[in-house]
């Protein structure tokens, strides 16, 4: 990593929920244009990390710092972080019956990127090409947000939002879960279009390496019981695929 200001900087972050500490001192820097992956089993604290960066009010931060482009995020509410450029693709996107997709997208683009980006041909063109990229038909626009969507539709809709909102930092929480091979290919295409060749950073959270075959990470971090126990290049993901997590768990990784 160079001297440039990181997009995301996390320093010694301790996070708990209802009094139980889940993350025990996380450190992470993501530079512009970099894609990082955090890998770990269920319950290792991956979703806690994602939700904390986005600003979920249920998580209590006992110490540490999170900053975006050098600016402290911890005092900001989720919607303010979103407007600064943080985006989270949810593992379980929520349904909002009665809220039309088209209306919601326009409103969200307006609030994050400004009214001008949400108007007229500028918006229509961006919408059209992003929808093509993630194979979402026009008829989708009049459906209600995540209401009755299949698992795959929900994930593609998250990536559509990523492409339209153009965040500085994209966090993708288990975007590959529940997707078949074609689904993974489609969302990966969207992620690459949104991140590659831009100054944005991305944090991909997953417990399989499958998606990382399509979206090549620059760095891979392994999260076990709330700590990053190892960091490396893309080859670490392949190693995990072969060997599982056991060899890195406490007791087994001493002396490595």
């Amino acid at each position: 990593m160079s001297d440039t200001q990181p997009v995301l900087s996390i320093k010694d972050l301790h996070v708990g929920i209802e009094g139980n500490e889940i993350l025990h001192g996380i450190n992470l820097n993501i530079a512009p244009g970099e894609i990082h992956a955090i890998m770990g089993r269920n319950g290792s604290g991956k979703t806690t990390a994602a939700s904390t960066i986005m600003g979920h009010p249920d998580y209590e931060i006992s110490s540490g710092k999170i900053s975006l482009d050098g600016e402290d995020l911890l005092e900001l509410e989720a919607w303010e972080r979103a407007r600064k450029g943080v985006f989270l693709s949810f593992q379980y996107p929520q349904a909002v019956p009665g809220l039309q997709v088209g209306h919601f997208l326009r409103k969200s683009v307006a609030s994050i990127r400004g009214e001008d980006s949400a108007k007229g041909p500028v918006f229509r063109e961006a919408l059209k090409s992003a929808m093509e990229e993630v194979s979402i038909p026009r008829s989708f626009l009049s459906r209600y947000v995540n209401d009755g969507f299949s698992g795959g539709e929900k994930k593609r809709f998250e990536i559509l939002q990523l492409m339209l909102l153009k965040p500085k930092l994209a966090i993708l929480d288990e975007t590959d879960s529940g997707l078949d091979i074609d689904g993974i290919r489609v969302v990966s295409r969207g992620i690459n279009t949104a991140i590659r060749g831009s100054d944005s950073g991305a944090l991909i959270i997953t417990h399989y390496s499958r998606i990382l075959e399509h979206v090549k990470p620059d760095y891979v971090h392994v999260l076990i019981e709330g700590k990053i126990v190892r960091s490396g290049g893309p080859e670490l993901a392949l190693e995990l695929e072969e060997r599982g997590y056991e060899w890195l768990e406490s007791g087994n990784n001493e002396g490595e």
Partner: protein
Amino acid sequence: MRESEVMAMEEAREAVGDYDLGWHDPEHSTIRFDSGLSEDVVRKISAIKNEPEWMTEIRVKAYHHFVNRPMPGFGDREALEGIKFDEVCYYLRSSDATEKDWDDVPDDIRNTFDRLGIPEAEQKWLSGVTAQYESEAVYHSIREDLEAQGVIFLDMDSGLREYPDLVKEYFCSVIPYQDNKFSALNTAVWSGGSFIYVPKGIKVEMPVQAYFRINAKNMGQFERTLIIADEGSSIHYVEGCTAPTYSTDSLHSAVVELIALDGAHIRYSTIQNWSANVYNLVTKRGIAHKDASIEWIDGNIGSKLTMKYPSVILKGEGSHAEVISIAYAGKGQHQDAGAKVHHLASNTTSKILSKSISKDGGRGSYRGMVTVSPKAENCKLNVVCDALILDDESQTDTYPTMEVANASARCEHEASVSKVSDDQVFYLMSRGHSEEEALAMIVNGFFEPFTRELPMEYAVELNKLMALEMEGSIG
């Protein structure tokens, strides 16, 4: 503003919360009755209006029925007992004439309707407008082409003067004054409201609108509306209502009767946004003849207590009823709303969709009744009621009744109660929307099946209104 007035306004705001339409004009009346009700008051109202003898008689009979009739045994009995009938002003005239030109309406009153956007809406997309201020219509107009086709759209008093036979035939024919205590009260002291007759085969494409504004303190507004759609005709009537915020209560008790003759179609849309010191106790019912259809699109946002159950009697074969309603019960409000449909004839269909939201300790109740008579074959009934509760202090109840006396009927009933989840709000916030905006999106989404039935202009207004309701709601 004098200090005492400022204090009174703040006291009112304290009692009922913020309400954007709660301003009031200085009261200047040309006739104002003393508070309280007696046979004498009833006769005086009739005399001022120079009514035919039969109308005076029916008013007097209705008055005595009102006095002797107990309060309804359901709804919010405690709140009902709190109505101080002696303190209500039963008749107040602010303008001597019903004008056809807004320029002739007294300035204060005209300004009020300007602020409410009525003249603008009229120019853009309405077929006709009647604007009622206190007891009387102050403005009334209908597009000339409709008038030329024989469409009658008048305030009710003018209707009685100009078409006494038609009024006599249908007045109290759908809702007799003995129907309930408040239909008796309305029949005794009614003033204003709309009278509409659509001739055979005429389809009125753009809606006509009535706007009801209460301005004076302790006012009682008792408009009476009668709509007759002759064979094969159709009309869409829209009403809106607002009032100033006062710390004392006002009473609004309307009666609306609809008659849809063979093959006719009446749609009646309401956006009720009374201030939270108004008792809103309204009786609305329609009769649908052969192949006719009646739709009530009923939005209840304001008032202290609303008790209103728009009803349809499916009298003719093949007739159809639809009641789509929403209720929003905020701080200090109880919305006891619902629908009634009676299937008296074969092959009749009905659909009821009721949605309510309770917030800040408000209470939303659905009260519905659907009946199928023994002779009515092959009827279809569908009832859906959904409630959304925004916090732990608020309440929702459902009182559905179905009495089906013919086994061939196909009945469907669904009910749901849901809460706004933190995860839903967080999801929307992560897309750049503040907590208030997120709530407004969820609430407007919940009401969408209702909103999409409204003319676009009303839908936009309703969404704005609900966004305002969500403001300042985050602790």
